Structure formats: C-alpha cells, structure tokens
C-alpha cells in the first residue's frame, strides 16, 4: 500500500495535481448548487412579494 502511495517517488506531484483537479471540481459543484439555492430563495421571495 505504501508503495502505491509513494507513486514511485513522485507522490507529491501526482497526489497534489489530483487533489487540486478534483478539489476545484467539487468546489465548483458546491458553488453552483449553493448559488442555485440562493436564486431559488430569492425567486420565492420575489414571488411572495408579487402576490401581496
């Protein structure tokens, strides 16, 4: 297992690039979902204000 983790001596480079890539991708996913939630709440308030 440790041999796999060491990545033939390049562990730092390989693991950092993978974490960066998939890290940024998950961040983008989370940001998009949060923004979607924010807009939905804003739309709901907008709708409620229209009905009043």
């Amino acid at each position: 297992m440790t041999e796999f983790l060491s990545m033939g001596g390049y562990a730092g480079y390989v693991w950092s690039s993978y974490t960066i890539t998939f890290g940024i991708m998950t961040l983008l996913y989370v940001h998009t979902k949060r923004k979607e939630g924010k807009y939905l709440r804003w739309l709901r308030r907008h709708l409620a204000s229209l009905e009043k």
Partner: protein
Amino acid sequence: MFKFLYHYSSLRNFYFFSEKLLPFLLITFVCLVTYSIYGALISAPADYQQGDSFRIIYVHVPSAWMSLLIYMVMGLSSVSVLVWKIKLAEITLSAVAPIGAVFTLIALVTGSIWGKPMWGTWWEWDARLTSELVLLFLYLGVIALLNAIDDRRTGARSASILCLIGIVNIPIVHYSVEWWNTLHQGPTVSKFSSPSIHIDMLIPLLTMTVAFMLYCLIISLYRIRTMILVYDKDSQWVKNVITDNREQI
C-alpha cells in the same frame, strides 16, 4: 433536425428536458470517473521514462481538452446569439464561460506541476502551456465583458462578438506560439506530445475525458437552469415551478 433544435431552445421545454436528463448524467459521471481514476492510478503501467509522474497526464490533458471544447461551445452559442437570436444561447454563453476558465486554470496548474519533475522548473514556456495561458485570458476577457454590461441582451451579444474574435485568434495564437517556441528553443520534440501511448494507458485517458465532458455538461445544465428561472421569472411556468419546489423542501 432544425425543428427539433428550435423546439428545445425554448426555455421552458429545455428546463423540463434537462430535468429528466440530469439524474442519468450524474450516475454515468460517477461510475465513469471512479473507473477512470482507478485506471489512471492503478491499472495503467508506469511510464518507462517518467515513472509514475506520468499519471498527471490523466488529469492535465482532459482538462486542457475541456478548456478548448468549452470555448468551441461558446463560439457555437455566440453564432446562434448573433444570427438566430436564440435566448437559450445567450444564457449558455454566460453560464459556460466560468466553467471553461476553471478548466483552463486546472490545466495550467497541473501542467506546471507535471513540469517540475520533468524539467525542474515550475513554469516552462512550452508552446502548448503558453497557448493555454492565452486561452485563459480570452476566457477572462469574455467574463469581464459579460460582467461589465448590466443589460443581459446587449451583454450577451457583445460577449459573443468578442468570443468570435477569440475563436478566429485561437489557431493564430497557437501556430505563432509554436513558431516562436521552435525558433527560440530549436525543434526539440515538444515535451507535451504524449509518446505513442500503450493501449491500456490510453483507455483511462479516453474515459477520463468523457467523464470530464459529463461533468461540464452537468455543471452547465445546473447553471443554465438557474439562469432560465431568473430570466423568465415573471412567466407563469416559473411561478408553478417555484410553488411546487416550495412544497418539496
């Protein structure tokens, strides 16, 4: 065919069409990405020259391809904004641009990380990395123009003109950077041209690329759907969507 395209370019139909599509896309993406990571890190043999640092290719090359693919998608939607004035294309343009910029950034970062073990420097003025950097500025230009204009309609039209100027410039920049690179460093084989890859090294690369494509599609669908709701916020169908949505949560 055009009838089909026109039918789905109306915002309402697209919204409900993408609603059905998304779960399927998510599942395929998750399976594909786990398989490709397994393939990239474990099953692909280490490169005889670069050893395991070669595995960064599975992340760097797909994201570079995505950055180019997304710019092409933006070019396509720019044409449909200017020529056919399709509202959906205007939304796609502003929804997809940041995703492209993110992937260009990933490609640049992983490219420079990969460069460290190979050349010992964090940044190598290699032809492909430099064109990628210029592509990043094309993206930032389009995003800056989109944010500078408040009116959505003229904003999308101006950004699509800039995007089309960018599309014409991408091959020019690419070949002039190649020319400049070979001129100053001599015609060595470009460090990034992946050597003739062994077959089971190639499979994970292709599956990872498809996985990235699915990811881009999912994220842009989410962003487009949100913008559609905001865009048509006064129309009746959005009100129904919001009210049903309120019951679920």
